[in-house]
């Protein structure tokens, strides 16, 4: 079946089997390899791309479902085609060291772009909940959350301090706060 998908602003068209996953269309048909396939079971979020501006897991979308729609991958972010970090989210990931091995990064970045688009006024808790569909096996969440806060124009130190205070308030009695006060 012939599909026509606008990918990163450019018209693309290929004859694909209906069972072709969007992730495979992007990687195999178009050669856009930023989108990683991790778990292949809708869990890890490494394959996150935007369809009509919203984050989706491209291992769980058929290419034919994106026919006549607009898809954005990490290659489509400002400056990426020139090898530059021109987008606020990619800039912030570098500034805050929001990656270690880098495998989850394209998915994290695209999920963050969608999250900030939907809610520009993010708290640290919003970011953590908003990234619940993305796993980092290096467990580098601390700096990833800081990067998304910076990209949203927040002061990550202030946001994390505010969260620590509210965490303390809701902490169960007897739960260690890590301050040696038990």
């Amino acid at each position: 079946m012939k599909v026509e998908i606008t990918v990163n602003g450019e018209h693309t068209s290929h004859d694909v089997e209906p069972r072709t996953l969007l992730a495979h269309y992007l990687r195999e048909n178009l050669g856009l390899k930023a989108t990683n396939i991790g778990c292949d079971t809708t869990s890890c979020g490494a394959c996150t791309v935007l369809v009509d501006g919203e984050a989706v897991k491209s291992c769980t979308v058929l290419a034919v479902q994106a026919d006549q729609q607009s898809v954005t991958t990490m290659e489509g972010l400002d400056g990426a085609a020139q090898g530059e970090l021109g987008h606020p989210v990619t800039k912030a990931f570098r500034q805050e060291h929001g990656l270690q091995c880098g495998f989850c990064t394209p998915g994290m970045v695209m999920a963050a772009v969608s999250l900030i688009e939907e809610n520009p006024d993010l708290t640290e808790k919003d970011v953590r909940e908003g990234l619940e569909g993305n796993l980092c096996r290096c467990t580098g969440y601390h700096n990833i959350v800081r990067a998304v806060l910076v990209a949203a124009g927040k002061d990550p130190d202030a946001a994390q301090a505010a969260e620590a205070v509210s965490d303390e308030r809701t902490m169960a009695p007897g739960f260690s706060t890590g301050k040696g006060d038990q």
Partner: protein
Amino acid sequence: MIPVGFDYQRPESVDAALALLAEHGDDATVLAGGHSLLPVMKLRLAAPEVVIDIGRLAELNYIRVDGDGADSYVAIGAGTRYRDIVVSDVLAKECALLPAVTRTVGDPQVRHRGTLGGALAHGDPAGDLPAAILALEGTIVLRSPRGERKVPITEFYTGVFSSVKEPDELIVEIRVPRTGSTGWAYEKFTRRSNDWAIVAVAVVTAPDGARRIGLVNMGSTPLRAKATEAALAEGKSIEEAAALAAEGAEPPADNAGTPEYRRHLVTVLTRRALQTAAG
């Protein structure tokens, strides 16, 4: 993982989708958001010959108050995505349990794709939405070339992943009562943030003031905590009533817990949910 090959159809209307369903019967499967169907197709637990994609039918995508006066209800198109339920102003005012439950389904990417009708048609007893609609005593509207019928959710499920929906029928609408913005709670217990519920409990206050309780993952279908509801109606305390929440349930055993564990957990979650719903 790649599904077995299939023929893909994207009809332009509900009527065209129904004609395709009638033509292909058991060989066909309906695709909406695909977040229950595509995983099982990728695992090759399902291998439909024909996939009918209704994901873009705008006529199945709405949330509105229908009907007159005391008979009015909230009507939700079966193709309405989780995301649209979560941010719906109508539901926040008219039936706030539903967006609160939906906010706990999967993760943001899943909620951008999955649909209410899809979740109900899939009928996973560990799913959040079937039990929430059960607590609400919602109605499922099924359409086929033979006409339309309205099935109360209490009569919809017949077992694990199975319901009274015939192969040529399509869920087109879900109706829920106008239970308002307060008097509800959802207690979902998971080990990790976007896991399926080990057990979850939905509580809502019915228009007549009674508390109704839907249980997730306590049997082969979503269940009502009938004994707890009856005890509350007799004036028993929340603690006494919640202790009966596992009565009649046959919870599953899996890596997340034994049936005994779930029978205990459901009493704790029911107590918490009833306390929260009481305000």
